């Protein structure tokens, strides 16, 4: 499957990855090559095969609904680029 440069722009937008114009054509070629590899899967008859999301028993373990963690807001926010009074700061979104 061959992707277009517009496809690459659209995928980059969905992934929220900013790209230089010069990166778009090489990415189109790389991603097309990978998709060609992946397309071998189309030839396989998978009618009635249960998809496998992860190994072993698919059931997720539940825990008792009780408090297990202490408040660590300051420690957990310490690596953030910008915080104020316990909030994460981002550029203004509402004018």
């Amino acid at each position, binding site marked *: 499957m061959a992707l277009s440069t517009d496809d690459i722009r659209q995928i980059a937008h969905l992934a*929220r990855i900013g790209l230089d114009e010069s990166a778009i054509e090489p990415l189109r070629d790389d991603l097309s090559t990978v998709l060609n590899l992946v397309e*071998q*899967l189309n030839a*396989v008859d998978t009618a009635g095969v249960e*998809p496998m999301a992860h190994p072993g028993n698919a059931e997720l373990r539940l825990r008792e609904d009780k408090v297990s963690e202490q408040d660590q807001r300051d420690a957990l926010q310490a*690596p953030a*680029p910008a915080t104020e009074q316990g909030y994460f700061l981002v*550029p203004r979104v509402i004018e």
Partner: protein
Amino acid sequence: MYEKTLAEQSRMLANGDCSSAELTTHYLDRIARLDKELNTMVSVNADVAMEAAKRADEQRSSGTQKPLLGVPMVHKDIFCVAGGRTTCGSRMLEHFQAPYSATVVNKLNDAGMVTLGKANMDEFAMGSSNENSYFGPVKNPWQHDCVPGGSSGGSAALVAARLAPMATGTDTGGSIRQPAAFCGLTGIKPTYGRVSRYGMIAFASSLDQAGPLAISAEDCAMVLQAMAGFDERDSTSSQQAVPDFSASLNQPIEGLKIGVPEEYFSAGLDDAVATHVRAALAEFEKLGAKLVSISLPNQGLCIPAYYVVAPAEASSNLSRFDGVRFGYRCDNPVDLEDLYTRSRGEGFGAEVKRRIMIGTYALSAGYYDAYYLKAQQVRRLISNDFENAFKEVDVIAGPTTPTPAFQTGAKTDDPVAMYLNDLFTVSANLSGLPAMSLPCGEVNGLPVGLQMTGQYFDEARLLHAAHRYQQVTDWHQRMPSGIE
């Protein structure tokens, strides 16, 4: 002291033949002398290591007997260690200080191990050559113009150069076993769920597992013992009991049935690698094992299925790096969209962007069924092949990689050629089975790895068989030249 295996160092410490402070000083000195050239480490913390070593020596002198007490090691820089930097090989996390430590880190600390520092790696564990690190490529100690493999390339290269007797690694598609093969080490990817992933930065959550890279199977057994076990903080952690991995190492392997998949010896496998792997299998026969020819008919679909599933999960996992809560943030964002796209565009390297974009595409509206669902169905077929094979055999053996280590730069322009390195390793991740690599030969001065895959939670049998092989061969003891 550096020629000794971890198990030997453990016995030396127990007998009082050396102290942890001596061992730690010895390795810190080696790192200072040898690592400028190899670039295996992204951070070294000598003060913290020496304090831990002194504590270990005090504990030992007051009567504490733990096999790993005072033994030095290095963590792949994907494991969060509170109080230091955890970069995952990325500009995105160049200055990231984790607020808590990974369970694996806590467990090895509790076992008394001394952490020397953090190992270089492919960015976010995506790569098979350790050329994708923001902190520069790692050299293979056996031949400096060759890659060490990846993504645990720093871990493998540093143990091969004997800068520590053991390093942790993670394995999503072969990232412990392929570098172990390229660097002449023994490494094991345990069963999915065997080792906790809490505090281990996620790549593809249905595939990721952690394990040790060391010199021998005996070493791996000792370290895995301390790493494994249920952790309520990891929702995929298994409650399966952890056996004593060292208990049966010295038993004979008489009657062990080793499955040899015909598909592993077809096109793509280097002839010299094949010869060494066949010779290793013959050695197992001499030890009393029985070789059984088996078939894994869907082996050829492993790479295509993997390169849908892994990027899809990566695109989801790596959406957390948004320039808001932690990690890199671009300068002067004009609005929120600009903050996201530039932080991610500038913070991620080329291969990580490629994989996120492949995954984003595979999961996007209109393509989900054709790619992601299809790949999950093929994943089931691949897993069923193993289930059928294990009705007849105890373990499955073959080459770890199609070729020995390749030259730096040889495959950087062709992502698919790079991905084919994982030809024999991704199936263990797709199925969730435990698998290990151990050295079984040399081609033109570069090590060759034998891969053994076991049944779910049957790591003990793999370690046992590998140990018996290492009792009658010396490939695992060989070292690169120039590391004195």
